[in-house]
């Protein structure tokens, strides 16, 4: 684990697509650095030869049996959830100039 690593808050906020105010950035930098400091105790553990564990149970390759089409939501149901919609489609700002 990198030592004396302080978090580049602007870079991470950009990766997370999360707008933060200057005040939030300052508070969060301090808090996150504290928390990352606490994580450093993991450095002391010998993990050589240990398999990473992604999941609680040893279950692999679960396939669907007899995958048949079931009921789906109608466009009107889905559109009702969207903040803005038109002609059964979700409206978003222009992506391609």
């Amino acid at each position: 684990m990198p030592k004396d690593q302080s978090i580049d808050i602007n870079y991470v906020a950009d990766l997370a697509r999360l707008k933060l105010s200057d005040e939030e950035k300052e508070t969060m930098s301090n808090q996150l650095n504290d928390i990352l400091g606490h994580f450093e105790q993991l450095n002391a553990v010998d993990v050589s030869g240990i398999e990473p564990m992604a999941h609680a149970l040893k279950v692999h390759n679960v396939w669907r049996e007899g995958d048949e089409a079931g009921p789906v939501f109608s466009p009107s149901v889905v559109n009702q959830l969207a903040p803005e919609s038109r002609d059964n489609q979700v409206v978003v700002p222009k992506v391609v100039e």
Partner: protein
Amino acid sequence: MSDLYQLEISQLQKGFADKSFTSVELMRSVIERTESVEGRINAFIDRDIESALQQAEAADERRSKGQSLGPLDGIPVGIKDILAVKDQPLRCASKMLDSYISPYDATCIENLKNSGAIIWGRLNMDEFAMGSSTENSAYGVTANPWNLDCIPGGSSGGSAASVAAGETIVSIGTDTGGSIRQPAALCGVVGMKPTYGLISRYGLVAFASSLDQVGPFSRTVKDSALLLESLVSHDPKDSTSLKREKESYSQVLDSPLRKLTLGIPKEFFSEGLDPEVKEIVTSAIEWYRTQGHSIVEISLPHSELCVPVYYIIATAEASSNLARFDGVRYSHRSKEAENMLELFSNSRGEGFGAEVKRRIMLGTYVLSSGYYDAYYLRAQKVRSLIRGDFEQAFDQVDAILTPTTPTPAFNRGEKSDDPLSMYLSDIFTISVNLAGLPALSVPVGFTKNQLPVGMQVIGRAFGEADILGIAHAFERSHSYYQMRPSL
């Protein structure tokens, strides 16, 4: 009949059967009680009284035709605001989902409906289940019924407080790092996190997918067992839900507990444990010894690493799961956006609260290029070691007994500015999620200030019947389950 809200499920079913009262009368009693205490507790974000009474009527009608659907028929079940109930709001206590209405039922909700349960309200929680005090809700804080200045625990604080305060008979919560067991302990009720994979997560808004699990809250162990029987099912819509024979957890409780070997992990009784909590839990453990069970000291040597491992894995998974809240297809959309990127980041910046933002940032950081191996991969390896500790322990013992929390309920605001100290309040519960095991919290006493103390019983994978039996034996030999907060 005004105090029907106090009763347990078996008493209610008996009353229904011998026509002493109806489900509608029960529901009215629960509604009346809720109206009188909710102003002080704030356990609910929403209540649909009309729908609850209609469901109660339907239950009475089934019963009058001899078509009762079983022990949960006509019993109100409060629902944490993180599970989808068709045509009801689902906010995850967040501004992000302020106007979201679920178009479908979660599988566990479908199971409850098929059991005839009355789906009752939307219970308050920490936003997106991130927190240990229910202070991170966009809909106000929930009070602990035993002391209104104290937090009820979290994240399922509304689920625990509503059961303790008599605003429902039982409720449902979710547990990613202790979010059922910790509030159950602090509110003096029973709360259980089942084995990972036992209950479908379909329709549960994901926080940390490899850790999340749905579970029951109740005032008695037997009521949790009955609720669990309904919640469990194999679900093709959740690839982590397991195919298993259905078990009758409640019937097991009717036979006497066999003699067991119970393990006491020494790491859970060291510094940081409140002396009163220690004394109360230790005397509960002594009671098991007097009943002829064998008590052995065990070691879970990697326990102190649980907090860093958990907060790396859980935030990493959360940062990925919460990417879906982008202001496009549903959720809050910012009005200040010129282009797509601004739409994403402004909507998320406006919609999420401080703790959710903090965890998204932490999770994004530990997964980011250059840090993945140092944090996430390393945490996953230590997670293997933590599971290994439990595997070794269960070679020797049938179940493990620990305090559920290091302290009784703390005061509102006490830890809200210090996220690290809040994270450390989960220290006894999170290893169980990392290992995927079942565990419950059962009330074992009260502090001098009349705050409840919970004991955690941890079982082998799919050992639900064992841990329910262990907790039930204690409960029926003591009177804590009959104690009610004065409200």
